[in-house]
């Protein structure tokens, strides 16, 4: 039989045949590994989860014209530079002065789906406009004109050109589908689709700006903006109050999770060290015997370290599974969405668990080598 085989046979026998004692040690390692794995999962998933939360606060990138005019095609081309999976929504806007009941009002033409995605906090009493002949009215406008959902509105547009012949009014009719409440300036506008806006104003492709909601960190966003600006068709700028506060909250949250992880690691080490000290104290006679029959200090260290590391391995495997379950529960309860399973975390947890167990076993194992066989084996 090879020495290595006997070594493994001994440490497995020690763990398996002393189950009741070793289960306590295994539990301390497994709990530590569970919390470690769970917290690291959360640490890496927080940006994604928080990013999704922050998308509720509106657009974080704005496209404007880099030259005289901004065309819808240029907006679409620039938006295509951002990966689809990170793009929450793109809402192009075109604003025009129109008249309702002969009173000037600002009309905004947009893509309702895009606006819904970039401004999820907008509250609509009724329904969003979806197609031709439908309109959504800001709460202030609705109040001034005593407009309610279901009303038919006549909207008049007068082109501002030098050609007086072309200055004839263009009139369109819209059904009000809903009243928009935002608490902001958006309540002063009326909203229609870009196609209706084009039909009303005789212009087809011009927009004033586009709002984008992108699920990415501040650095990635800056990268996308630089890439878009380099193409020179569109000027992309970040909505600093959103991206900066997102970055600040993320940094603080990640720092908090990191701090808790370090504290848990330290507590696990203390726990494992205490357990190993108890294991060594309980086995002083056995250590004395091993030394008496010829075990060197190095052999004793190897055997106890082997046991400790095997505990770390088992604890790490149990911990990486339970850690994912723990992180998933936290994710579902706090962020309301599932966690992404990161397979790399399994070997990392196992290695960390082995390392932590190994390091925390050093002191107790060192004391094991100081056992004097003559003293502990003395007959009664």
């Amino acid at each position: 039989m090879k020495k290595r085989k006997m070594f493994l046979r001994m440490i497995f026998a020690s763990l398996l045949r002393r189950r009741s004692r070793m289960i306590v040690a295994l539990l301390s390692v497994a709990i530590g590994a569970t919390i470690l794995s769970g917290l690291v999962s959360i640490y890496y998933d927080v940006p994604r989860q928080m990013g999704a939360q922050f998308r509720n606060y509106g657009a974080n990138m704005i496209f404007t014209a880099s030259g005289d005019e901004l065309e819808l095609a240029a907006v679409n081309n620039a938006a295509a530079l951002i990966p689809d999976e990170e793009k929450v929504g793109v809402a192009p806007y075109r604003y025009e002065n129109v008249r309702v009941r002969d009173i000037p009002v600002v009309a905004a033409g947009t893509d309702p789906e895009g606006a819904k995605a970039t401004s999820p906090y907008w509250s609509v009493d009724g329904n969003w406009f979806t197609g031709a002949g439908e309109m959504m009215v800001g709460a202030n406008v609705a109040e001034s004109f005593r407009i309610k959902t279901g009303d038919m509105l006549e909207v008049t547009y007068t082109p501002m050109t030098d050609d007086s012949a072309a200055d004839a009014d263009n009139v369109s009719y819209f059904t009000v589908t809903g009243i928009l409440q935002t608490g902001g300036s958006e309540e002063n506008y009326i909203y229609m689709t870009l196609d209706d806006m084009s039909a009303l104003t005789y212009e087809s492709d011009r927009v004033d700006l586009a709002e984008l909601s992108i699920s990415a960190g501040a650095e990635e966003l800056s990268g996308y903006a630089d890439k878009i600006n380099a193409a020179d068709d569109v000027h992309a700028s970040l909505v600093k109050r959103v991206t900066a506060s997102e970055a600040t909250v993320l940094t603080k949250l990640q720092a908090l999770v990191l701090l808790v992880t370090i504290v848990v690691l330290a507590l696990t080490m203390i726990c494992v060290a205490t357990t190993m000290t108890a294991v060594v104290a309980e086995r002083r006679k056995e250590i004395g015997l091993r030394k008496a029959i010829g075990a060197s200090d190095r052999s004793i260290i190897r055997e106890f370290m082997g046991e400790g590391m095997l505990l770390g391995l088992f604890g790490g495997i149990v911990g990486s599974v339970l850690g994912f379950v723990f992180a998933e529960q936290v994710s579902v309860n706090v962020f309301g969405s599932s966690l992404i399973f990161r397979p790399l975390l399994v070997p990392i947890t196992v290695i960390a668990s082995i390392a932590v167990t190994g390091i925390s076993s050093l002191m107790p194992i060192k004391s094991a080598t100081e056992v004097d066989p003559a003293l502990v084996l003395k007959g009664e």
Partner: protein
Amino acid sequence: MSLLELKNVYKIYGDLHALDDVSLKVEKGEWVSIMGPSGSGKSTMMNIIGCMDKPSKGEVLLDGVDISKESKKNLTTIRRDKIGLIFQQFHLVNYLTALENVMLAQYYHSMPDEKEALEALERVGLADRAKHLPSQLSGGEQQRVCVARALINYPEIILADEPTGNLDEANEEIVVDLFHKLHTEGTTLIVVTHDPEVAEVAQRTLVLRSGKLSKEVVNENFTGKIHFDS
């Protein structure tokens, strides 16, 4: 040259002389008993001969080497290579089977050999108990496993500390018979005991009193067999 020679050995703890100018010789293949009351220095002498302690003064020559001058590390090597230890409390590793306990001594000495370890258990009549844990064995059986472990590496000396102290008469007889067998095969035996019946089985009995060798009795009618009074 004697296999073991103690020359004017002292072991002093403060004012206490646990061993006080002890000199003795043990020849190869000899069976010697060391007797004495509690506190006479038996255990101290056993620890020094067993390379688990060093004398305060004097020389201890084992196979010509003065072990009183050796480092702790070298003493471990000498103990592993030359001495087989048997204890009153058996001291088996409780989570290893009888066979694995014997193989443990092989593991530290050279290379574990399951077949050889099984043969050693066969010699002490425990081949059928090889897979049992110490808790599943009687005291006598545990002591026989201890004997098998002590002899597995063919040591120069088997050093037994009260080997029958925890055994009933039947098991005491079995263990003494095993010693007789080992002696016949040429093994040197040093048995520390306070039991006169066990001590008298040996070829020679040394009596310790207050750390000094007070008496030496040679067994003229040596048979290697135990005779109980009752």
